[in-house]
């Protein structure tokens, strides 16, 4: 075994013995995906209708409502207060042949009212046996459809590659302040050998993080990536390289682990929220959009999504891949140029 392979295996051992690493790099992205996926993953229509009163039409209306996907009926004797408290989206009072609807301004409420209006119109027409003057048929567009989880998984994956790259930089600062790097410097080991070994370990981690995240997404949400596996792997390794180099760069311009973690947060948080990880960049206010266009994480998330969801090829991702490669080269060169073994003096 060479110095390089011995160091790669040492790095991996150290990481897997670190609780911070196991939680923040391996578990946290998965938990975040489950949390957001469960909270916002149900993109289907869902509404609760409170029904009170009696009348000949009541059983027929209720029977029809039961067949409409997403509509839940609650039988109640109370008045329309449930709407105010938010438990109900719509309140319906039936008296003989009169139906009274009370709705709010919410889109769900409006949509439910429209559905019920349509049902009553149909029932009226059926009762007078009127022939339909205009016929209507609705069909689905064939091809893949995306839901929120499909959007979220590549985003969370990109985010986890970013945080673990920055985290690696932070640990380099700790090694330096503790004198661990100085001791390594006193051996025949060279700086490129050391950095390359840490980089290799990072690529192994990137693949592992990806496997865990995609595995959980598949089991919980039936998520299956499309597109070329090779294009996907190249894209995620390139992204991982870019963020590790940013981490290495930060590690060599700051003095203490505390400052490193602050700087990393300053990089981490805007990227996380402005790069289209959790919601599309299109939903951001117009004045922020130019900012998100300069964040490398946006390009990684975009490229991963385009490959995993739309089966796009690498040549179609030239722009984001060039941005990521540029990030890796610029910060990699700066980091090796500024590299310091020793915290005490330069």
């Amino acid at each position: 075994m060479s110095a390089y392979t011995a160091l790669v295996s040492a790095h991996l051992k150290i990481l897997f013995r670190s609780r911070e690493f196991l939680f923040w790099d391996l578990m946290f992205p998965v938990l975040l995906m489950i949390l957001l996926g469960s909270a916002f993953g149900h993109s289907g229509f869902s509404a609760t209708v409170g029904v009170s009163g009696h009348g000949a039409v009541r059983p027929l209306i209720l029977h029809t409502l039961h067949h409409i996907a997403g509509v839940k009926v609650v039988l109640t004797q109370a008045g329309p207060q449930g709407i105010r408290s938010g438990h109900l989206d719509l309140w319906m009072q039936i008296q003989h042949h009169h139906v009274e609807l009370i709705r709010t301004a919410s889109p769900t409420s409006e949509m439910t009212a429209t559905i019920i209006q349509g049902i009553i119109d149909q029932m009226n027409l059926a009762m007078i046996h009127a022939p339909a003057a205009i016929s209507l048929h609705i069909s689905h567009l064939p091809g893949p459809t995306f839901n929120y989880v499909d959007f979220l998984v590549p985003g969370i994956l990109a985010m986890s590659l970013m945080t673990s790259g920055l985290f690696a930089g932070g640990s380099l600062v700790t090694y330096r302040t503790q004198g661990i790097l100085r001791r390594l410097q006193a051996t025949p080991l060279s700086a490129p050998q050391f950095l390359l070994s840490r980089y290799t370990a990072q690529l192994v981690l990137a693949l592992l993080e990806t496997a865990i995240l995609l595995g959980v997404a598949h089991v919980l949400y039936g998520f299956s990536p499309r597109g070329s596996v090779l294009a996907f792997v190249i894209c995620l390794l390139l992204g991982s390289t870019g963020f590790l180099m940013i981490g290495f760069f930060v590690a060599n311009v700051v003095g203490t682990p505390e400052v490193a973690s602050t700087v990393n947060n300053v990089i981490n948080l805007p990227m996380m929220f402005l790069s289209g990880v959790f919601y599309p960049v299109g939903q951001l206010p117009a004045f922020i959009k130019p900012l998100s266009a300069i964040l490398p994480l946006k390009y990684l998330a975009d490229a991963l999504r385009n490959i995993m969801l739309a089966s796009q090829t690498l040549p179609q991702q030239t722009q984001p891949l060039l941005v990521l490669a540029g990030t890796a080269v610029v910060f990699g060169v700066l980091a090796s140029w500024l590299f310091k073994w020793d915290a005490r003096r330069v």
Partner: protein
Amino acid sequence: MAAIRVNNAVKRFGNVMALQHVTLEVDSGQTVAILGPNGAGKTTLIDMLVGLSRLTSGNIEVLGHVMPKESRRVRERIGLCLQSTAFFPRLTVRETLSLYQHFFTRRRSVDELLDWVQLTEKASEPVSKLSGGQQQRVALAAALVNDPEVLFLDEPTTGLDPQARRDIWDLVEMSRQHGRTVILTTHYMEEARHLADRVIILDRGRVVADGAPNALIRQYAPNRVVRVSGDHLESLEKLGWNPVAGASGHEWQRPLEDHDQSLESLLAAARQSGAHVQRVSIQESSLEDVFLHLTGRSLSA
């Protein structure tokens, strides 16, 4: 053959002269202690010798190679135990030594090293779980993974308890008997005297003395000292005695020179002058006195 040649070495940090025109040669097989107070330039000198820091001017050769230009070739053949360095805390003792072993082409067996520093039972413990003395033994074992020709030890026992210090001394002693060149820095004169066959005293970046411990004492502090304590000792001043600093006049001392009268007559004269002497002690000169003589300051200050 000289293992180390330092010629007119100067190191400046801003306005501070850390090393001022240091010239010295160390033969292979010698054990040399570099003695001096904190800030004397000991660590700076070691850093220069192993190529961790660049000289401002002058030149250094280690094992025939120019430093720091040929550092990597030299590091292949030397072992280091440095101050304020550490190992990966989450690796075990065995993993640490095995990792360091892979950095060198010449390798000693890890089991043999573990046995040598008596850490075989701790081999599977993470380094972070060891005591200070045990960690220092790991550092010493790591310094020896490549069976080095020259061993550099920068303050190897600073901060250790007396037993742990003795353990390190034994290990250094064994290494020395092995025929290795050993360069160690220390501010404990006892350590220098015990381990080294040559002492280099460094003060404010300059070599102020260089030689075998006993030769230095003979040369710079040949006098033993008589020290008395008691009351009414002020009268001793006329007889050539000096008050001991910090003893508020209750302890006085004077050199006991070979051509002096006997101790008996010195004390008789003291009593006659009216001094009440209660205790008498004779202090052998030490490297501390050599340092005091050469710099006018105490080593431990």
